[in-house]
């Protein structure tokens, strides 16, 4: 807390946020112990939850902070899985392959960003979808994949199923924690201030000297890497790779749903959205097509009536910030002025 | 009887309060010169009268009818036309098309395309040129013509001489001269004080969003206006306006 004149101070942590962060640490520790007590099905579901949190956080980083709405993020999900297959086929340990594949995908996203970030708004959004469709086709050409028939991550078979399940679970948990931590640190850093300035007003940010394109590129590459990790984890957990499943626009639909419901541009919002999505899927996923209609309709309704999402509303009504990435001005007396938004 | 009444108008741009507690009345045929430094709130006031910017509070009455919440496209049908600052022509469209757009509201009256071309003969050869390619004076004439095509009772002119050479300004004002005597009520925002005084029957000076002077042109001296313009009357309050 930094003191300014007249008892005004700037705070970056609040009491509730300190509490939230320590709670989160404790929850992570508890979650790490979960495979010892939970059944196989529950462990697999939790792994899926961690993947969802990663997807939501990464799409949020791109759209909520970078102002880049993409409907083609499934390209990185698919590539993460594809390169994992490729590397494992070449003899690399499947778990190592997973992270090496994410690094390769992240590296590919860099030259791609030079090109795609010159597009704006809807053109970027659908442009990414085209990239994804093209990549899907090209992956199909790989003999190893056998077109839409797909293939499996056979090398995982050397581990027995309970070890495999637990390792994937821990990897997913660790990846989620690391990616969230990295994003949190990034948003609180000097670059984070630039990122939030871009979110609020791109032209004004450029006018005060923020390197807009460079900052966006950072988010683009981070999101590509994170989503590729998620794709690799999904592959490890499902073991089969069918290009159609991994390059499906449905993944982006999930990301959009989670972030829109949770709160676009809110760090906590993406996590909340992922958890909600997980719960909804658990209870209503069996409804099949009506479940998907519900997801789409919810997205439409949130975009029209609650564009700030649930977390945005919670933050506004209760002045609550659990994982503060901004600054806020504390005035003497009961009123508080929010620095951001 | 007043044609239009502004009552305690407050207009905001986000947190910035651009117009504060402004009230005045205009009768038919009045020519009001609205003066004041940059940022005094003149353009915002005109835009909120035209409906392009809704006020935070206060009322705008036209012939007794409350207009405050009426959107801009309906106000022009009620007889209020704005020639906006910077002219704001549709640059991809021709002079003729811009003028035809002025007729959208469908008010009855004397103004036709031919009459606009009579009033602004410099536009005649440019009839089918895109307005993006016109000179500043031609653009200004088109913007005024476009507003006149709606046969307004009240014409709001925002900085018609901005960016024009003095010679061209002379021509625009010469062309306006007939209009000034035709009984149309006019509100004129003009930086050139003597030019504004020469055509107006009344002058209002704004400072930081407020009216600080409101007098008939005949009863006011240049020094009084300059004083109000810079806020000199307030120096004894301990604040100086820059």
């Amino acid at each position, binding site marked *: 807390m930094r003191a300014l004149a007249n008892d005004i101070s700037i705070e970056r942590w609040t009491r509730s946020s300190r509490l939230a962060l320590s709670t989160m640490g404790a929850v992570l520790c508890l979650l790490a112990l979960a495979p010892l007590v939970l059944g196989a099905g529950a462990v697999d579901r939790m792994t899926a939850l961690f993947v969802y949190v990663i997807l939501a956080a990464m799409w949020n980083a791109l*759209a909520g902070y970078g102002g880049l*709405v993409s*409907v083609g993020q499934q390209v990185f999900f698919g590539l993460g899985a594809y390169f994992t297959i490729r590397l494992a086929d070449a003899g690399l340990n499947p778990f190592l392959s997973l992270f090496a594949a994410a690094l390769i995908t992240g590296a590919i996203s860099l030259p791609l960003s030079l*090109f795609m970030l*010159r*597009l*704006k*708004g*809807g*053109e970027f*959004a*659908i442009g990414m*979808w*085209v*990239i994804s*469709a*093209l990549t899907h*086709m090209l992956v*199909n*050409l790989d003999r190893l994949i056998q077109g839409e028939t797909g293939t499996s991550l056979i090398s995982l078979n050397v581990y027995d199923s309970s070890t495999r399940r637990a390792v994937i679970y821990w990897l997913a948990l660790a990846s989620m924690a690391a990616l969230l931590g990295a994003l949190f640190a990034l948003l609180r850093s000097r670059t984070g201030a630039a990122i939030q300035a871009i979110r609020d007003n791109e*032209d004004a940010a450029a006018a005060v000297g923020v390197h807009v394109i460079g900052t966006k590129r950072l988010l683009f590459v981070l999101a590509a890497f994170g989503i590729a990790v998620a794709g690799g984890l999904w592959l490890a957990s499902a073991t089969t790779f069918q290009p159609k499943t991994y390059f499906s*626009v449905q993944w982006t*639909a999930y990301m*959009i*749903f989670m972030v829109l419901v949770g709160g676009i541009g809110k760090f906590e919002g993406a996590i909340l959205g992922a958890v909600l999505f997980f719960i909804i899927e658990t209870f209503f996923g069996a409804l099949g*097509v*009506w479940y*998907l*209609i519900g*997801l*789409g*309709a919810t*997205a*439409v309704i949130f*975009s*029209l009536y609650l564009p700030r999402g649930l977390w945005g509303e919670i933050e506004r009504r209760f002045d609550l910030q659990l994982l503060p990435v901004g600054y806020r001005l504390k005035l003497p007396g009961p009123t508080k002025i929010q620095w951001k938004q | 009887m007043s044609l239009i009444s502004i009552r305690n108008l407050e207009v905001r*741009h986000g947190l910035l309060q*651009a117009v504060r507690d402004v009230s005045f009345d205009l009768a038919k045929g009045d020519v009001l010169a609205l003066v004041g430094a*940059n*940022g005094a709130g003149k353009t*915002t006031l005109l835009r909120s009268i035209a*409906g*392009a910017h809704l006020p935070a509070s206060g009322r705008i009455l036209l012939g007794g009818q409350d207009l405050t919440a009426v*959107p801009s*496209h309906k106000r*022009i049908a009620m007889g209020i*036309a*704005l020639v*906006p600052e910077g002219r*704001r022509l*549709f*640059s*991809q*469209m021709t002079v003729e*098309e811009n003028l*035809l*757009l002025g007729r*959208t*509201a469908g008010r009855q009256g004397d103004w036709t395309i031919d009459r606009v071309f009579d009033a602004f003969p410099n536009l005649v050869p440019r009839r089918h040129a895109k307005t993006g390619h016109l000179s500043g004076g031609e653009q200004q004439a088109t913007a005024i013509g476009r507003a006149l095509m*709606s046969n307004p009772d009240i014409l709001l002119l925002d900085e018609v001489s901005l960016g024009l050479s003095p010679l061209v300004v002379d021509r625009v004002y010469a062309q306006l001269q007939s209009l000034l005597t035709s009984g149309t009520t006019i509100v004129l925002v003009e930086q050139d004080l003597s030019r504004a005084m020469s055509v107006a029957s009344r002058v209002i000076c704004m400072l930081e969003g407020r009216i600080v002077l409101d007098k008939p042109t005949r009863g006011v001296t240049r020094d009084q206006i300059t004083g109000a313009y810079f806020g000199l009357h307030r120096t004894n309050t301990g604040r100086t306006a820059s």
Partner: protein
Amino acid sequence: MIDTLIQGILLGGYYAVIACGLSFMFFVMRIINLAHGSLAVASGYGLWLLASKFGIPPFAGLLIVLPVMAAVGWLLQRYLLDRSARGGALLPILTTFGLAIVIDNLLFEQFGADTRSLAPFIGSLSYDSWELPGGIYVGKLAVLMMATAIALLGGLQLFLSRFALGRAIRATAEDPDTAGLVGIDARKVNAFAAAIAMVTVGIAGAFLGMRATFDPYSGGPQLLFAFEAAVIGGAGSLWGTLIGGVVLGLAQSLGAQFHPQGFLIGGHVAFLLALFARLFLTGVPIVSRARIGKIRLFLRSKT
């Protein structure tokens, strides 16, 4: 080879039809409607339903489907897009994407996963062709689609330049704020524009069903084709759409000569090359106009 080229060019007619609505909405409202393809497919299903259940042939069915599509466009703009566009440029992308998911899955729920086609209902038109000198055959349907594309684009052009409503649409597209100042109700005009766009989408849906098969999830690929044709031709330019459609059709037809998957790959690659050429050779950012608008807005709010 010449045969492939002619097929490709004529295929462009279909792409021009489906792209022109997307391009038109982008030109007027600066919105890219991600439900565009899904709406075209929905119109295809509408015609299929009329033909198979009520025996109304597709060309007569258009008399019912097109007014419905116009109403859908009007309502879409009035109750969804207008509201979401006020929340910023990014929100309509999310709204229309959500809408696409709803439409696709509703279609699936109603009609199941089977692929459908309108070809059985149009008699010999779907396979008849004219023979040109040199043993080249051109499909009658393909020619019809190209002719429709030209008529549609020409009609839109005429409407925009000669009619008061067309002028109002152009004025609103350029500067909605000033359009209000000259007496144009921008919301109404936008709703009209959306209605017109949806009529073209309805026609595109008919052609989609006549020349090929469709299923409930065909909307995504159709959106991509429409988008690619629109961008290749320069988004927001009417006749550019025709050129874009032809380029896309040619690239796909040529691609298909090389590889079974080359049809789609060829189209995507042509799109990326066109984009690349535009970004790096001309150096013109694609939505420079939207940015100028923003800057203007910024300058205006100063006083």
